[in-house]
């Protein structure tokens, strides 16, 4: 048979590889910066874009979408061509994908620092960027499928199954979770409210971990590990079972982020059991990786690429075992809202994603420059710094999470809470210092890698188009009896559709009843829409990322009810577009904040939290005291809310600003009583209005006595 000659496109891999390195460093430095704010809040510099609430989304987005995203793309573009024995379908599409993705990252960085956010974790980007992501994702999909269609390899290797599942599921997750109603160019409200928004968000959030941080990276493991170790994959059968089981089961597990919340119990239980069932499919990937190294363990001692991979896969195994354990209600009751979760995700992030990204960079770059790695010793040093960094990061965070949670739950024998919230924070500050040391070690390692790769590139010469040859694919006339899955491996489109159907099931079964069955969210008559001023204040709350440290979800626990008040009910959140339950309690819960403190307390506290709570680690929000509220946006916001079904009266958008001014004046007058002079059009007034409203509606009857005065 005639052998065809063709060239692999290395230029696009190089571009994605460089982007991985640059954004990896940026994302890690942003992480270190926010880590330091935990014990040295002054490093926020009292400047809005560098406060925790705005830098934290930058950190997570940079790591997830820029660092791991670009690493996955680099690895996919490298491996897909070689596994399909063809060049990418279209160089033009490759470059549109590359520049489109980098433009999205740049836009994300700018808008997040400006406080333009939807307020939904890991989906913070505003609607124009959401649309851009969709378009670029489609370009990527066309390019990937084009390549698969024109392949010279009859069957699709397991890595490609994972790439296909990644593409189709991320598309579904992104589109469903990003449905929002635009208010202005960079402001929108989530289509969903309260419990429903929470369900959709964590269906997305959990599966962003599954299908952006896990499946593509598993695909990379399936290509780069056997290549680097020069060993056959351990079990084809295991690949099939763990692949299909993984993508089917993962989708269901989202509600485990909402245990003990106002989410209906049945949905919580589904989240629990599907998380537990995920252990085996996840470990299937780990076993297939580690057992592939059978007979090659001597190489692990020598080869930095394999070293990184072994730790990456081990971390994957650990966090996919820990995850299901954290999904058990009794464990979740301790771990949720604490640093335990932070430790857990960083085992995955630093260990699994980071180390695998480093491994493929160490593998691909010498290959593409036709040389050997500049220094194995430096790579080994990077490996050890990274590994020690992970341990020094994770252990203090586990400790902090455990200690803080137990302190929250501690009662005196008299039945009083043993610790104030602030005490529990002050107690764990030393652990935050340790954590940032661990992070610094990890980043130092990354810098060593940059130097090592730079020297490697300098000593080699880049091969932009790598020659290869293979026989073209010919249609076989006679039908041969094949294993059923082999047949599927010849049909990429069938595989795409099968994956889509499989991943759609879980979401549909959880969402449809939550949206349609009324008993899932019992209405509470006294819960009313926000006033225009409160709505504006809420948008400031979202803009400053308050939800990243303050939850608004009192779980039905003795200590939380004692500390914060009556536990949260599903009906309280029906006007919350988007929901603001949060996932971490660096500060206390605010679900019943309304009426707990005076207006002047809030004013002073926002000016400098340490004046009211010495030892607090909250940043100062000085600019809120100076900046004027943008009331021009009020009518559009009211109209948008009306479209979403919030029962403001018809035509209210025209008179809303009058109500707003009236309420603002009364707050300003209230502040004046406590000798605080402020004009009523400042942003802080709106924020105070919102803070004083949260969680009050349910207490509306009987009216608090104070209101009679």
């Amino acid at each position, binding site marked *: 048979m005639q052998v065809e000659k063709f060239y692999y496109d290395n230029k696009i891999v190089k571009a994605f590889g460089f982007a991985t390195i640059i954004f990896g460093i940026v994302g890690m430095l942003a992480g270190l910066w926010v880590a330091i704010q935990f014990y040295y809040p002054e490093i926020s510099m009292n400047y809005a874009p560098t406060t925790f609430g705005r830098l934290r989304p930058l950190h997570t987005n940079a790591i997830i979408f820029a660092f791991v995203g670009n690493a996955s793309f680099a690895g996919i573009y490298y*491996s897909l061509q070689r*596994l399909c*024995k063809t060049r990418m379908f279209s160089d033009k599409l490759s470059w549109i994908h590359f520049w489109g993705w980098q433009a999205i990252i740049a836009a994300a960085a700018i808008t997040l620092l400006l406080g333009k956010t939807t307020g939904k974790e890991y989906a913070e980007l505003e609607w124009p960027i959401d649309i851009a992501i969709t378009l670029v994702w489609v370009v990527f999909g066309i390019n990937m499928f084009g390549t698969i269609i024109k392949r010279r*390899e009859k*069957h699709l290797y397991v890595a490609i199954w994972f790439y296909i599942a990644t593409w189709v599921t991320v598309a579904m997750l992104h589109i469903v979770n990003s449905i929002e109603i635009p208010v202005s160019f960079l402001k929108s409200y989530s289509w969903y409210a309260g419990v429903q928004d929470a369900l959709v968000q964590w269906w997305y959030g959990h599966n962003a971990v599954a299908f952006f941080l896990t499946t593509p990276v598993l695909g990379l493991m399936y*290509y780069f590990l*056997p*290549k680097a170790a020069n060993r*056959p*994959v*351990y*079990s*084809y*059968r295991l*690949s099939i079972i763990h692949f299909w*089981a993984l993508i089917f089961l993962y989708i269901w597990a989202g509600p485990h982020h909402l245990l003990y919340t106002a989410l209906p119990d049945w949905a919580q*239980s589904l989240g629990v*059991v599907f998380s*537990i*069932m995920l*252990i*085996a*499919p996840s*470990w299937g990937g780990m076993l297939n990786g580690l*057992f592939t190294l*059978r*007979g090659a*363990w001597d190489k692990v001692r020598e080869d930095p690429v394999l070293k990184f991979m072994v730790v990456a896969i081990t971390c994957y195994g650990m966090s996919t075992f820990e995850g299901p*354990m954290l999904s*058990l209600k*009794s*464990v*979740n*009751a*301790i771990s949720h809202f604490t640093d335990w979760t932070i430790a857990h995700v960083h085992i995955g992030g630093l260990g699994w994603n980071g180390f695998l990204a480093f491994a493929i960079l160490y593998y691909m770059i010498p290959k593409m420059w036709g040389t050997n790695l500049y220094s194995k010793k430096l790579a080994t040093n990077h490996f050890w710094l990274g590994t020690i960094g992970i341990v020094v990061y994770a252990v203090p965070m586990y*400790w902090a999470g*455990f200690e803080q949670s*137990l302190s929250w739950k*501690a*009662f005196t*024998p*008299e*039945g*009083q*809470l043993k610790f*104030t919230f602030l005490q529990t924070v002050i107690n764990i500050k030393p652990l935050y210092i340790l954590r940032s040391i661990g992070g610094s070690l990890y980043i130092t390692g990354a810098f060593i890698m940059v130097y090592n790769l730079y020297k490697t590139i300098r000593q080699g010469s880049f091969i932009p188009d790598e020659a290869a040859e293979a026989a073209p694919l010919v249609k076989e006339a006679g039908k041969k009896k094949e294993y059923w899955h082999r047949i599927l491996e010849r049909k990429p489109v069938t595989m795409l559709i099968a994956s889509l159907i499989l991943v759609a099931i879980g979401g549909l079964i959880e969402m449809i009843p939550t949206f349609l069955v009324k008993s899932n969210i019992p209405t509470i008559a006294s819960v009313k829409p926000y006033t225009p001023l409160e709505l504006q204040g809420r948008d400031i709350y979202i803009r400053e990322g308050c939800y990243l440290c303050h939850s608004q979800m009192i*779980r039905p*626990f*003795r200590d939380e009810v004692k500390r914060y*008040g009556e*536990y949260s009910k599903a009906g309280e959140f029906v006007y919350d577009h988007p929901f603001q339950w949060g996932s971490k309690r660096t500060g206390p819960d605010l679900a019943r904040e309304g009426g*707990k*403190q*005076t207006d002047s*307390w809030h004013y002073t506290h926002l000016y400098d939290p340490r004046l009211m*709570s010495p030892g607090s680690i909250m940043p100062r929000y000085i600019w809120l005291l100076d900046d004027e509220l943008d009331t021009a946006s009020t009518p559009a916001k009211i109209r948008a809310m009306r479209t979403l079904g919030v029962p403001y009266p018809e035509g209210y958008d025209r008179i809303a600003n009058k109500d707003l001014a009236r309420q603002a004046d009364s707050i300003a007058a209230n502040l004046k009583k406590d000798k605080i002079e402020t004009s009523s059009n400042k942003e802080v007034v709106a924020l105070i209005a919102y803070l004083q409203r949260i969680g009050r509606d349910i207490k509306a009857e009987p009216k*608090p*006595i*104070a209101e009679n*005065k």
Partner: protein
Amino acid sequence: MLLSFFKKSKNILRPAGILLMLGFVQPVWAAGPPAPSIFSNPFALTLIILMLLLLIIIGILANILLGAADIKLRKSKKNPIAPIAGFMLLFLVAGGNSLLAQNNPATTVTATAAASSIGGMSATAFYIMASVIFLELIVIIVLLVNIKFLLKAEKKKAVVVEISQQTEAEKKPGLSWWDRFNKLRPVTQESELDLGHDYDGIRELNNRLPPWWLYGFYLTIAFAVVYLWRYHVSHSAPLSKEEFENSVARADLEVKEYLKMKGDNVDENTVTLLTDPADIEAGKAIFTNPMNCVTCHRADAGGLVGPNLTDDYWIYGGNIKDLFRTIKYGTNKGMKSWKDDLSAKQIAQVASYVKSLHGTNPANPKAPQGELYKEEAVMKPAADSIKALSDSVKAKDNKVAMQQAK
């Protein structure tokens, strides 16, 4: 060497099973009241857990070391695992015993709660635990150094041994327990498993699924069925709300018992001025806690948002009963009710501490507010108005901190 590496995984599995069981058995524990004794102190608990974890690590490392030593020596052809396991068991039991022995004094010391405490427990207990942890760390380092030494020696030999091993393997493929556990076939028989796939040079084997993995998967599915059945069909496990009500009921009972035993039953009618320095000191600790009184009244009680508490003027009355009532129920000028945060005894202590501050003349005091109050002269009107307020609060059991109208 491979064998010893994987021994770690085996040890992971056992706690896994236990945790799974926990999921079944103990969902109620989550919101339940904390156990008494040293286990209610989170810091001590973490230390104990750390000690146990390190002990487990020591056990694993010792196991690896012994295994490595055994491979190196190759003394007997009999199963070497058994004596090692026996030794390990002894080691663990001994370790566990010594740990418990050290815990005993720790518990008793905490009960008497000396003033010199670290992290909420007695200094002695802390130092004992810290030194145990320190010793454990040293043992770990020693073990690691030894393992590294052994492995290095092993590596040098590897080249020589490999050839002889190969011939041995051809004769009779030796399957370790680990290989059997995973249904692993010897590497030498790999060609039989090769599927003939070739993707860019990557071949695929068709090894059988590790049995423990497969049965583990079935087990989790069984767990799922039983879990859903218990919570949503047979209703034999409590859902969130029920779990909450149970835990509160249980805790309330315990508190009631405790208070009955201890006699903490003062209220605004029976409270008297405490003069015991210990009580005043306790009151001061509560007052100066950053989340309590100081936020509004300043550390020296000179007044900030709230009034000066050291002068002769009182808005809601200045005798001990008035103070107790004001703290307990809050005021309509912005002070919150503290009855959910402080016990009756604690409120009495704070009130007494505040009384003790009278006339301390702090710098920069807030201007006097309220009416002049002289000791022994009961301010009837003020007391009455606050009494009315407190009664209505009691009637409605309103937990809301009383604030200005919104």
